[in-house]
């Protein structure tokens, strides 16, 4: 049985349709990359899957672990093992990173009928994951993402993912804004979490990340539709010909190549 099955998904914001019929199936343990030019709807897809209310689903179904995903509250999707690493992680002054993450972990544990972990056990529990992502204690004690550099925010997202151990991780442009060392670190963190029980959807604009996180499948999203799917070689092909090679307009690229 597929872990995630998206059928003919349409989503709008206000009057405007952004997702125009997406079909995608992700099996347990698979890594799917979704690539596409700016504004093609990658983040919208990721946010719709996580349950963001500003987007209205107008057509289609999504099944997750055999359940109707679209009928679930965002918090329940998370408790059922879904995780979204945000393209733009939100700064929340006044709540420490550790407090936040422990609350998240405990919410999930409570849902599963497990006892909550206290502050002390929590630190024990996350020590290894901190090492994995070279998170330093100071960063943990600071308010959530507040004043973090772009790279620190992305690393913090993957750190959260490492602690929450999701079944389905959706990484939205986790590579953007990272220098090559940070990118390697984040990719290393992600790869350490790969396994037969964990699926991933890796959203990216550039193929660079896919050198480090090698996907099983690559899909190209353009104007709200998946226009092409293939294996990892599709990413390499895109690298050579650009989106234009697939007949897709990409403003940013066009500017870059003039």
């Amino acid at each position: 049985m597929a872990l995630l099955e998206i059928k003919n998904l349409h989503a709008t914001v206000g009057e405007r349709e952004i997702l125009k019929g997406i079909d995608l199936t992700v099996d347990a343990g698979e890594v799917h990359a979704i690539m596409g030019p700016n504004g093609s709807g990658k983040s919208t897809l990721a946010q719709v899957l996580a349950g963001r209310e500003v987007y209205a689903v107008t057509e289609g179904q999504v099944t997750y672990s055999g359940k109707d995903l679209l009928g679930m509250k965002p918090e329940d999707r998370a408790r059922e093992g879904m995780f979204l690493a945000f393209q733009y992680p939100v700064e929340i002054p006044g709540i420490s990173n550790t407090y936040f993450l422990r609350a998240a972990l405990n919410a999930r544990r409570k849902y599963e009928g497990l006892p909550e972990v206290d502050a002390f056990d929590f630190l024990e529990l996350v020590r290894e994951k901190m090492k994995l992502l070279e998170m330093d204690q100071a960063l943990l004690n600071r308010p959530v993402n507040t004043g973090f550099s772009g790279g620190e925010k992305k690393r913090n997202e993957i750190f959260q993912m490492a602690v929450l151990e999701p079944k389905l991780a959706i990484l939205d442009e986790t590579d953007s804004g990272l220098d090559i060392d940070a990118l390697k670190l984040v990719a290393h963190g992600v790869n350490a979490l790969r396994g037969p029980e964990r699926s991933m959807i890796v959203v990216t604009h550039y193929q660079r990340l896919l050198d480090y996180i090698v996907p099983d499948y690559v899909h190209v999203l353009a104007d709200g539709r998946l226009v092409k799917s293939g294996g990892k070689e599709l990413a390499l092909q895109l690298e050579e010909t650009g989106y234009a090679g697939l007949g897709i307009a990409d403003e940013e690229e066009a500017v870059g190549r003039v």
Partner: protein
Amino acid sequence: MTPVAEQTGAWLESFTRQHPAAPWIRQLREEAFARFTQMGFPTTHDEEWRFTNVAPIARSRFQFRDIVGQVSGLPANVQAGAIAGDARQWLAKQAFDQNAFVALNTAFLNGGLFLRIPRGTVVEGPIEVVYSVDGQVGNLPHVGPRMLVVAGADTQFTLIERYTGQGRYLTNAVTEIVAGEGAVIDHYKVQHESGEAFHIGSLFANLGRSVNFSATSIAMGGALVRNDVNVTLSEGTEATLNGLYVVNGSQHVDNHTTIDHAKPHGTSHELYKGILDGKAGAVFNGRIMVRKDAQKTDSKQTNKNLVLSDEAVINTKPELQIFADDVRCTHGATIGQLDAESMFYLQSRGIGKDDARNLLTYAFAQDIVDRIKVQSLRDSLERILFEKLHERPQ
């Protein structure tokens, strides 16, 4: 009888039945009572009381009841006792003729608390005074806590005032602080009255040269609450005014602050934050006065409000009166709701909607809590805040 006489007349009986006192106190009481009967209770036609209607207080038949603050943390060299003797040279020097409630408090001066901190004294832990009223026994009580704190030059101490109680009653409190040159004083007021109580309080701080003074006002309880904080700065004085008000249900809290820069080189920082839910109302009025002499004044005022329901109402108003030209004064007020993106971020991590709301609300108040220097106070405040935030109907 005129309406004013009708209201104030009811207080006369209580007034005439007070404990005997020294002649100068009796005289002060009489002057104050005369002033009170002349002014009557303010109405919403008074600019100072535009958004706060005290008619429910004026209509109620309160009976005066003595109150003694429970004092702890007093070191041996700090003198504490009733207001008497040479308290006379400091007491009620700050005009009671402007405020009917201050006049009323003065008219009912019965003992009170007089703290004298001798010059150069450094007090380690906080001095705490707790006023607790049980409005569930006896007649509808009216209590009038009065405190006079005279701090010598170069003293250093922390003073906490706490107000709690049960049932219905009126607390009408006045605290006066006179600080000598170079004193370093942190003042905290935690108002956690019962949900049915009325609380009117005024703090007057007359700050000498180079004094470093902070006043933090926490308002959580009460049905109808008015807090006035008035500070007068001298040359090189630094004053910090912080406040947090958290109201729900049909609570109403009014904070009026006045910072009077009377002399040059004064600095004042003011940050008041409010959290409003239900049908609650809140008022923030921040007056900053920079007198002609007070060149090089540096003053910053901020009021931020988090409004959690459609029915809660906040009125916020800065009032800058600047008569000097070489000064820096900034002010700003915001009124906002919970940030939808932050809510989603928390929910996307598995945190339920109500918990996410509470977390973000709590986070909003965090910087005021963090500024509190007394650990035990921070802890108790976090507890009160936590309970208060969970009062909302789920």
